[in-house]
């Protein structure tokens, strides 16, 4: 066999493997979508791929019986507020660590990095007690917005990003008599926009898909976010409303897919930062 033939063979095998892998990756999305248009009996009894009697009743029921609009709004405003606040505070902290020399800086930075190793489950019990007994924040959006507002990962990420902001630009601002906060808002933030976008997408995605903590603190139905609503459609064995669940799952995935297709570059930049260096 000549080298050329060997190359063709390798290529063919590679494409075949990638196609198989893509089927595995995409199939759950496809199944979610086709099942969401099936009536409940057909989901279990029906052995067909496509719905025999397609219906949008599942979607309608989700909004009429379970007030899905309210839950989507809850998810949306919590994710938006949490993201905006965190990105701002992380940029502020990252900027200070990257561009200022101040007493205790290295120690503070080390403490911050060390704090990243604390798994959330360790905080679950005491934080829940605090939210309920001290702050009275059960069934409010605050536990999902405030405690994580200035998180170590975000500050670390923004610091790496801010290192490349030019000092000349900052000094020019100072000579013009701008305040340090003014320089941050008018000079630093605009130049760091791609970094803010990366971090913002990661935070938004994390908040939108968050499950454990909202499950603990959002107790009343009208406060539920989308993942909690989906979980509540679960019933005793055999009674789980998979028809509505699949409709809700499709709707929960769509915003993320839209974000992904338009801002893929920023998301990938955010994920890879810190993995190679640092």
């Amino acid at each position: 066999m000549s080298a050329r033939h060997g190359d063709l063979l390798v290529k063919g095998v590679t494409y075949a493997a990638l196609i198989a892998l893509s089927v595995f990756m995409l199939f759950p999305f496809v199944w979610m979508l086709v099942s969401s248009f099936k009536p409940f009996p057909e989901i279990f009894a029906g052995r067909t791929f496509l719905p025999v009697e397609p219906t949008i009743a599942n979607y309608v029921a989700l909004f009429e019986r379970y007030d899905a609009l309210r839950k989507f709004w809850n998810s949306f405003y919590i994710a938006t507020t949490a993201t905006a606040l965190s990105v701002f505070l992380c940029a502020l902290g990252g900027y200070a660590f990257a561009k200022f020399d101040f007493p205790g800086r290295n120690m503070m930075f080390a403490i911050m990095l060390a704090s990243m190793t604390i798994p959330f489950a360790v905080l679950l019990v005491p934080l829940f007690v605090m939210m309920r007994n001290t702050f009275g924040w059960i069934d409010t959006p605050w536990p999902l917005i405030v405690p994580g507002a200035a998180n170590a990962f975000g500050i670390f990420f923004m610091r790496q990003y801010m290192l490349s902001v030019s000092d000349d630009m900052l000094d020019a601002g100072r000579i013009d008599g701008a305040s340090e906060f003014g320089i941050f808002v008018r000079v630093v933030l605009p130049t760091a926009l791609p970094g803010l976008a990366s971090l913002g997408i990661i935070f938004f995605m994390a908040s939108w898909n968050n499950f454990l903590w909202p499950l603990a603190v959002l107790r009343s139905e009208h406060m539920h976010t989308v993942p909690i609503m989906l979980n509540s459609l679960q019933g005793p064995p055999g009674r789980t409303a998979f028809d509505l669940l699949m409709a809700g799952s499709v709707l929960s995935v769509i915003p993320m897919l839209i974000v992904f297709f338009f801002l893929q570059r920023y998301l990938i930049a955010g994920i890879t930062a810190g993995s190679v260096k640092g």
Partner: protein
Amino acid sequence: MSQFRPTTSPPVTPGVTGGPRRGPLRVLWRHRWPLLFVSPFFVLFAIFALYPIFFSLYLSFHEWRGIGPMRPAGLANYTRLFGDRIFWNSMLNSVILFFIYVPIMTFMAVVIATVLHGKFLKLQGMWRAIIFMPHLTSMVAAGFTFRLILDTHSGFANQAFQWLGLSPVPWLDDVWWARISLGLLMIWAWLGYNTIIMLAGLQTIPTEVNEAAAVDGATRSQVFWRITVPLLKPVILFAVTLSIIGTFQLFTEPYILTGGGPMRATETPVMQIFSSTFANLRFGYAAAMSYVYFVTIVVLAIVQFKLVTRGDR
């Protein structure tokens, strides 16, 4: 940890900037802006992490149902925990699950990244996007979808097996198959993420290295095992460490896919902490559990790191 570059600091003109003129306050005043900028993190960290951690330690020596008075319990929570088979079983489950999916997933991620990096394929961006897409999905939505597909009696997976003439598999109804099913969901959700990390690592390897090896007559698999993998080692180590931490933090996936069953085969430590708190209202016991769990993870991470870096010096 990375080194700090020399940085600028705002010029100080005493008398013009105002504030105290001498003493430690003057130092603080001089650096008031950066200190103010980093303060949100430290204030929130103190209130919502440091204080709770100490409160949790205090709680772990008490018995408390979440309301009413706490009763001092001494070491009772800890001694009970060390004999708690259900808890240690959940820790063991995490270790088993780790070995079920992490080696395969990491290997696949390195191979796929190498292939995508190799430039000889068309539509690279498309393949990358497809492999990454599951990572965006809510694990609640994904967990329910997998549960539907893998249902032993009416799921599509067994239907497809039947069409292919294979016998049905008890995906979620058998101890080991349930673990494998959970591993499948984990690979589905995290393969893309790991591939992206490996791709970023590959981009730091100069292409001349591979080209030189190819000129010297090395085969593809030789280049992969003798050049790509060793050069990628730090990135692989980083990804595996993330996977260890991630596996021990698992909650949503098993909670939705299997509910921890069958026979507690897929129950995780975080599920145990959650149910001790919210189902059994044993707050002190849950706090003790969190501590033991945390210490175990730290020890495991250190051991893994030592094992992997052993040969390097």
